[in-house]
């Protein structure tokens, strides 16, 4: 392991050492403990604990809702980030701080507020009931909560990239005869592509791990609106530590594979 070229910045050995120590202590060590735990069940025990219908349903809901929420957050976040960067309007500073609120708010508070809003008698829920749409205590509620917590990640990732987008490229497209839609599609979006993917990954990762805001609005019906993190907590409360760890590792591995794929895709995007 060595630097390809001599760098003007000294201290490669020291900084790499610190980085590795830090990653080991904070990330790898707890993860290793997690990964080691389930083996006391034996391979078949792990397999059995993970293929319970209730577990599969929870994993499907967690990853499905997180992916869908991320997919919704990407265009939504792009729109918000674009408006915040490109336009000046009264109340912009205020709107800018509001975007970060889901990050600062204790997730339980967010969950309770969302539940109050979307419950059949809540402000929004009451409007949706006549349409036959139930949000609170259904998988749709999970989706709403995950959109709420994931949005700031996408917006904050996109903003600096939109700031850096050269405005003259868009102007050049216009002088070359491109319509606004063509400019957006052929010039702006390709330049944002890698960041949109990264935003998707961040929102997805956040969504898979989200607990506090979801459990209040989800209703937590086994097989229907129960998310994987909740199931882990339930197993912990039943003192089934190995089973909880098995589910934890499964979530971890799935997330890792998905993020790795997104990372790959992003790199290919950036190259082409």
């Amino acid at each position: 392991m060595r630097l390809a070229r001599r760098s003007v910045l000294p201290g490669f050995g020291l900084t790499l050492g610190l980085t590795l120590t830090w990653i080991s202590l904070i990330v790898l060590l707890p993860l290793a403990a997690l990964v080691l735990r389930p083996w006391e069940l034996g391979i078949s025990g792990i397999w059995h604990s993970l293929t319970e219908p209730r577990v599969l349903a929870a994993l499907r809901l967690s990853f499905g809702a997180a992916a869908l929420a991320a997919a919704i957050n990407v265009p939504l976040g792009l729109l918000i980030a674009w408006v915040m960067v490109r336009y000046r309007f009264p109340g912009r500073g205020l709107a800018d701080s509001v975007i970060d609120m889901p990050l600062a708010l204790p997730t339980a508070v967010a969950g309770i507020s969302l539940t109050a809003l979307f419950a059949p008698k809540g402000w929004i829920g009451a409007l949706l009931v006549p349409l036959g749409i139930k949000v609170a205590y259904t998988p749709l509620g999970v989706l709403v909560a995950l959109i709420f917590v994931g949005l700031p990640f996408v917006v904050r990732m996109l903003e600096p990239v939109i700031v850096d987008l050269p405005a003259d490229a868009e102007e050049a497209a216009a002088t070359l005869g491109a319509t606004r839609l063509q400019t957006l599609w052929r010039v702006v979006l390709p330049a944002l592509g890698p960041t949109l993917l990264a935003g998707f990954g961040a929102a997805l990762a956040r969504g898979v791990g989200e607990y506090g805001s979801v459990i209040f609005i989800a209703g937590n019906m086994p097989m229907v609106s129960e998310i994987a993190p909740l199931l882990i907590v339930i197993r912990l409360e039943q003192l089934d530590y190995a089973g909880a760890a098995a589910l934890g590792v499964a979530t971890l591995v799935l997330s890792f594979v998905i993020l790795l794929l997104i990372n790959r895709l992003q790199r290919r995007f950036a190259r082409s």
Partner: protein
Amino acid sequence: MSLELRDLRKKFGPTAALNGLSLSVPRGEFLALLGPSGSGKTTLLRVVAGLEFAESGAIEIDGRSMRDVPARKRGIGLVFQHYALFRHMTVARNVAFGLEVRPRRERPSAAAIRARANELLDLMGIGELAQRYPEQISGGQRQRVALARALAIEPSLLLLDEPFGALDAKVRKNLRIWLRDLHDRMGLTSIFVTHDQNEALEMADRVAVLQAGRIEQVDTPDRLYAEPVNAFVHEFLGESVRLDCVVADGVARFHNIPDVCLPTGCAAGPAIALLRPHEIGLLPGPGPAHVESVHAAGPMPRIRLALAGRIVEVLLPEGAALPMVGQSRGVDLSRARIYSAA
């Protein structure tokens, strides 16, 4: 095509970027917009391209008003100062862009577009770069790509914003000659912005000198140099020697230079006399000029004189007899151009 600009006005906040600017550019001309930074050159280019809008005034191309024509329908090629290439596209795709975005009915076939892009890149002398990305090529090559991209749409008018600004001196010199030649071969009508007077005088058919959003003078390079209409143009183009004088009864007199009086049509009052260093003659002394130094290196000897309280540089003709440092000499200012100081 021909371009006609009439009384364009535009303000950015309190400052006028265009202040009643009028200009007409006939078909086939290569016109330079020359002026100090902040004089409105780039704004003018952007207004013509349709990227900015004047508050009043008219823009006509071949007699057709551009008032309600958006940038994408003007058919004007604009080469940006920093090229504005699309970073995620290859050079060939960059050049093809203007053809690919055409409505289906007007769009050439994919093969025809590719052929056209390659043909333009060959014309620019960078055919081998077609599959590279903008970040993989040099500044001068990017300049050519930007030009090829602008030319792909067969623009009626080509606008270039400081086309050589970001290039080193040698590349710049070659590109100048090449661009001028390209303009002539392709029968283009071009306007280019520069703050480099040599560039403007060397390349352009005519040069428009801008100051504070107005055109001070539009003329051929030689007339601009020989007959500047005011002191600003005189001093902006080439070395100038400036002497204060007073005009009364149709003659200009200098404060500390007795025996010199120059007939002028200038209005009575304080005035400025401007000369090029080689237009000042040295007369046998004694006289008002005091020789401070003599530099005889180079084709024309350069003399520094103390005259009327200031240091004045004079270029003597080749082979002229050199004065001695410390000598007192007379000066011939008869070729001075007199401008009213108001």
